[in-house]
């Protein structure tokens, strides 16, 4: 009799041990889930760029994504159709709560407010970026938060 009771207790011990491990795995999964959701809902402040080329009227583009590429390649987020611009010329990224400008080893270089950009540099509203002969003006709109498109859940 005592043997049977203790056998049951031994099995329950094993169950409890794996209960611990099961919960640990469950919490790990929840952590992954939460991390994913929190990254997905992290808000990128809107950024507007007005592109000027010669005397043409400026074109203005709005973005809500954390990475914006500039270059002659049509796949770039801001295609700059000019021979003085490299295929992939410069990159704007949002991290550490800031927008950063980075030159992607372009032929003619990138200027930020007339200064050549040699390393990732923080930009603010009103800054001028020059890629070859193209000029862009940055407008940051922290209040204008554009919700990123999310897949609709059933």
């Amino acid at each position, binding site marked *: 009799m005592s043997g049977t009771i*203790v056998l049951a207790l*031994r099995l329950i*011990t094993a169950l409890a041990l794996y209960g611990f*491990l099961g919960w*640990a795995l469950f919490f*790990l999964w929840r952590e992954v889930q939460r991390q994913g959701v929190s990254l997905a809902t992290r808000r990128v402040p809107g950024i507007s760029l007005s592109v000027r080329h010669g005397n043409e009227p400026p074109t203005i583009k709005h973005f809500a994504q954390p990475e914006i590429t500039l270059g002659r390649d049509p796949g770039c987020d801001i295609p700059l159709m000019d021979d003085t611009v490299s295929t992939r010329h410069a990159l704007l990224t949002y991290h*550490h709560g800031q927008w950063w400008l980075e030159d992607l080893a372009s032929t003619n270089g990138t200027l930020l407010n007339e200064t050549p950009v040699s390393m990732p540099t923080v930009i603010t509203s009103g800054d001028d970026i020059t890629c070859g002969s193209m000029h862009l003006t940055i407008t940051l709109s922290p209040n204008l938060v554009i919700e990123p498109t999310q897949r609709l859940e059933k």
Partner: protein
Amino acid sequence: MADETQSRLLRWATLVLLIQSTVLTLSPAVRERTWDVDYRLSHWLGFFVWLALMNFAHRATIKLLPERDPYLLPAAALLGGWGLLTIWRLDETFGLRQTTWLVVSTIVFTLALYVPKNLSFLRRYKYVLLGSGLLITALTLLLGTNPLGIGPDLWLGCCGVYFQPSEPLKLLLVIYLSAYLADRVSFRLTSLPLFVPTLVVTGLALLLLLVQRDLGTASIFVFIFTIMIFLATGKRRVLLSVFFFLALALFVGYFYIDVVHIRVQAWLDPWIDPSGQSYQIVQSLLAVANGGTIGRGLGLGSPSLVPVAISDFIFAAIAEETGLLGTMGLLLLIWLIVSRGMIIALRSADRFRRYLAAGIAAYLGIQSLLIMGGNLRLLPLTGVTLPFVSYGGSSLLTSFIALAILLIISNVEDSEPAPLEDPKPYTFLAGTLALGFASVALTCAWWAVIRGPDLLSRTDNARRSIADRYVQRGELLDRNNQPINITQGESGTYNRIYLYPNLAPISGYTHPIFGQAGLEATLDNYLRGLHGNPSSLIWWEHLLYGTPPPGLDVRLSIDLSLQQTTDQLLGDHVGSVILMNAQTGEILIMASHPAYDPNKLDTEGDALASIPSAPLVNRAAQGLYPIGNALLPLIQAEFGIVQPTESELENFYQKLGLYRAPSINMPVAFDSQHKVVKDLKMSPLQAGIAAASLSYQGIEPAPRIAMAVNTLQQGWVVLPAENQPVEVIQPAAANEAALAFVIEGKPYWSHIGRATVDGHLITWLIAGTLPDWSGTPLVLVVALEENNVLLANQIRSSIFSLALNQ
């Protein structure tokens, strides 16, 4: 979120240990199979202290480290509590000490949480920390002691409190290397600034440990150094060269350092010397095998058979009592700590903390792998502790400080991790450790499940004789159900009693130290209940108690009243007597003198084997004597008065079975050396089987001594003879020969033979009932190691008058 996770997991850990403690409390009742026992209660002190301490630590982490990793503390708490209960179960004195150390460790752990969160002071005082660590370790060379009294002097201490400085030294080395490497920007492998100071410091520590013969800690130092340099440089050639260095060190050590030689030898082939050099590892494997899949239950195995089960072999103790299920869980718990440590390393905000976290995770992982692999014969044995689990204040304290450092590093509030040039070393390290844990898991399954049953049936498995104390062994009875060997006492104190010691050379003994002999050995499977019981019952009893079911009684063909007369007649003379049913082969008398008293084995057992008259030998079945002219009646029956040639005689002896062992369920001997006919020897049993043919139509019976076994379901079941009767002589010739040797006025024939061995005379007597005897046909053999025809004839007359007039 982190708080909820941590408290939920701690509640599960508490549940595991609560049930474990209950099992331990009830374990004496299961062992002795009665509720009327002294229950084990002292370990509850350990459990409640653990519960209070972990609650305290849990609250402290919530208050001080709101963003910490929530898995580390519960996993470490469960490991620590599991180890604590196992130590209480093995040894209550050490259990109490470990509980005290747990109090100290938790207090230090909580205090450590108050240090500045960037741990900069560790970085600043790296040389001071490591230097003082080395100094204290060096002190053990002068003042070292060993609390156990034997082994290397690695401890400092007095008044019953001991500390092993090489334990915290491992952590100090990790801190020093992290600080040093984080201060260097360039990581060129060949750069001297990278190598020289670290190598000098590590080399110094290694030298110290080698002088102390603390080889386990020394190898962990080599691993820590390698891993830290590998993490900093990302070059695999570091690992390769150190692997080569370790192999070389093992090779050199194998030939020049005794400890290494012994350990490697025991690792490569433990089965050569299982009771000496490889005793520990063989006992450890037996413990793992006894655990099987679900384990014996806490308090129900015999883990204390493994030396130093509380520290070096605690993994084997846990494997025995919680089985493969438990060890898999244990491995996953350690892996949880190691893998979370690696993640904390990758998430940390600067290089110093990254190296520190990765180093600590690797140190905990490597040390666990070394000792678990050593316990399972996957790696050579190195005497290190299992972090958090093993007994040892220094080990426990160091583990909890390491845990505190990991928790502090994990407590980052949403800051960006430091950049990482190359993720490969971290991936590689984590992968290698995972592979190591998987190998340990597979090896454990191999010993516990696949090789387990084979290991457990080894005769040096002391669990068999422990089980004998708790399970009633079957009785040996004579043909009229008179008890011969019985088991008395209660569960826990069962003891074998030998009611008729004169039969000892035949019936043998079963003893925890001297093993088994005679019928007790050959019928062991019945007497132990492993044969004759349904396999489901055997399985169930093993599951519940880890023992075989109660043993079954075996009835022998011996007739105790005839046996008694024979023993009186034989007295102090050296020799043997067999009386056998010539038709069925049942042995009614088997006497061998001198005998011994198996009830006195405890005191006289050692001396018995060296007595010149060899009382342990069953002279009737194992004594070999020259044939001389003992078989004259049979030769006459086969060849008449013609003298047979040597080859004819050899063929005849072959037919009679003198060249092979008789098939009977007891230890027997036959002459396997002398192929020349004139030198051939035979045992009285062989002579009896051959002579039986004259009393029963020229047919040799199949000898039998174990007649029947008393099973639970079918009652007495007959044990068949192991052989078939064979006709060896023409029936008519046999009858004629028997009549030629008749004793006037008696219903039996008889023949006295003589032989000499080394100048001593042997007296043979073979006799048997006449072919026309209407009762049971009987055959008698007497072999005396002296020239005493008178005694032989007297035995014959007395036995036949008793046996035939019944």
